[in-house]
């Protein structure tokens, strides 16, 4: 046995999808730099920043999970010394890393730009985090649907649901007075509503992940 099979599967997914990650990072960086010009460029850059994360969240589950079924490479992977639980864990690790690396990199870059620039006030940082969590939740839901549902139809349904809900989420968050009031503050204000929203978002991610593991462990057919 050469090393951990889970490690090999994670590395395999990374090698297969690195160009997608590089492309996402490139578009994300351009969007954030564009936002530094303020005005219309700020709106355009902000929209691109979120859109690129939403698109990545939709593409990764389709490309890493459903394509393995559709293109019949799953049989090749499952012929290796791997159980269905190990496959699920490897898939979760690789796909989470594939999403989190660009998500975190772009988020940190955005925070650095806010801290060092004068276009966006630091009071918007909590809102930026709350809004950026939405594509993460959407990705989590689409990934779980693809893994458990094993069908393109279910993934499309989840994708439509998520992509139409992002704008609603952003609209509702922007209308919470205690959150909106601090947007133009010179420093980030971590008040109770902001902490509550962030905790609720993290809790939702944990719940979806737990349910995914539960349903996967009950599967009897894995082809």
């Amino acid at each position, binding site marked *: *046995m*050469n*090393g951990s*099979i889970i490690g*090999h599967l994670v590395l*395999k997914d990374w*090698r*297969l999808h690195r160009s997608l990650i590089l492309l996402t990072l490139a578009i994300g960086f351009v969007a954030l730099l564009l936002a530094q010009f303020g005005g219309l460029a700020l709106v355009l850059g902000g929209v691109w920043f979120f859109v690129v994360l939403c698109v990545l969240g939709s593409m990764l589950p389709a490309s890493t999970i459903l394509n393995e079924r559709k*293109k*019949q*490479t799953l*049989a*090749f992977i*499952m*012929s*290796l*010394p*791997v*159980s269905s639980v*190990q496959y699920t864990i490897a898939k979760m690790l690789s796909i989470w890393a594939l999403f989190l690396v660009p998500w975190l990199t772009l988020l940190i870059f955005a925070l650095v730009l806010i801290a060092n620039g004068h276009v966006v006030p630091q009071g918007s940082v909590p809102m930026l985090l709350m809004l950026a969590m939405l594509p993460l939740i959407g990705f989590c839901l689409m990934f779980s649907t693809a893994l458990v549902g094993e069908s393109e139809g279910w993934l499309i349904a989840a994708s439509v649901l998520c992509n139409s809900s992002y704008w609603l989420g952003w609209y509702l968050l922007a209308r919470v007075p205690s959150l909106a009031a601090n947007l133009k503050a010179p420093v980030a204000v971590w008040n109770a509503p902001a902490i509550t929203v962030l905790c609720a978002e993290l809790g939702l991610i944990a719940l979806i992940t737990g349910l995914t593991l539960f349903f996967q462990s009950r599967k*009897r*057919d*894995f*082809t």
Partner: protein
Amino acid sequence: MTDLALDMRGVSKKYRYFTLDKVDLKLPRGQIMGLIGANGAGKSTTIRILMGLVHQDAGEVRVLGHSMPAEQVAAKWDIGFASEDMRLYDSMTLGWHMNFIRSIYSSWDASYAQLLLKRFGLRADQRIKGLSHGQRVKSALLLVLARKPKLLVLDEPTTGLDPVARHEILRELTEVMADEDRSVLFSSHNTQDVEQISDYITFIDRGRIIDSMDKEAYLDRWRRLRLEVPLGIDLPALPGVIGVHQRGRLAVATANAFVPDLANAYESTGARVQCIENMTLEEIFVANVEHSREEVEA
């Protein structure tokens, strides 16, 4: 260590439109078993249960001494599996796949892999996307063979191949099987391929194993007797004869447990035995399936 590479006992799996029904299958270590069945007979379901990819509803499965599906990880280190519907990653090269498999299996034999590349006429730097069906099958087999598994499970590997590619693959498999410790389960609906390389033959139809035994003994048991039957004589039902088709004065009796006395038994009724013919595996398969279906329907 058990002497059986595969041991299935009373294995059942129920789907909405198909049931694998109490399958018993044994393959001694070092032997080659051909699993023959029509499309939809249950070959792939049987193989997927053996690989731990599908969990049986009832029955016990042991592969290389490991209980399946619980110990599938331990078992799969020593199993090489390739199936007709298995695909490699289109966007990557064969070389990338070879490196991937080599990174997992310490048993990977690099020099043998290079030899197989040459024999199969493959190039490591070619993307899978650009390969023909035959080259893809050969690539999958290369990845399996170069890691020297103790058990090879091949699900219809020659389906859809041209005669040259089929010949190349069967020749390689014949060489691989010279290793007496290696066991092989080879499923196909092409009886010629199975007849060429197998020691044991198993027929499966509509989810049931209808026969399983040593190939030579099996071929020896089946005969076709061509008879001339004078008017007014009725041929009796004789033990070992599964069917008699008569048109006018000519009859053909198919025996699945032929003994020389069978000809004497027909002669004693007044019929004349014109000739006794050996049957090909394909003819045996068709006769066996038809007989089995008649028995079930009766």
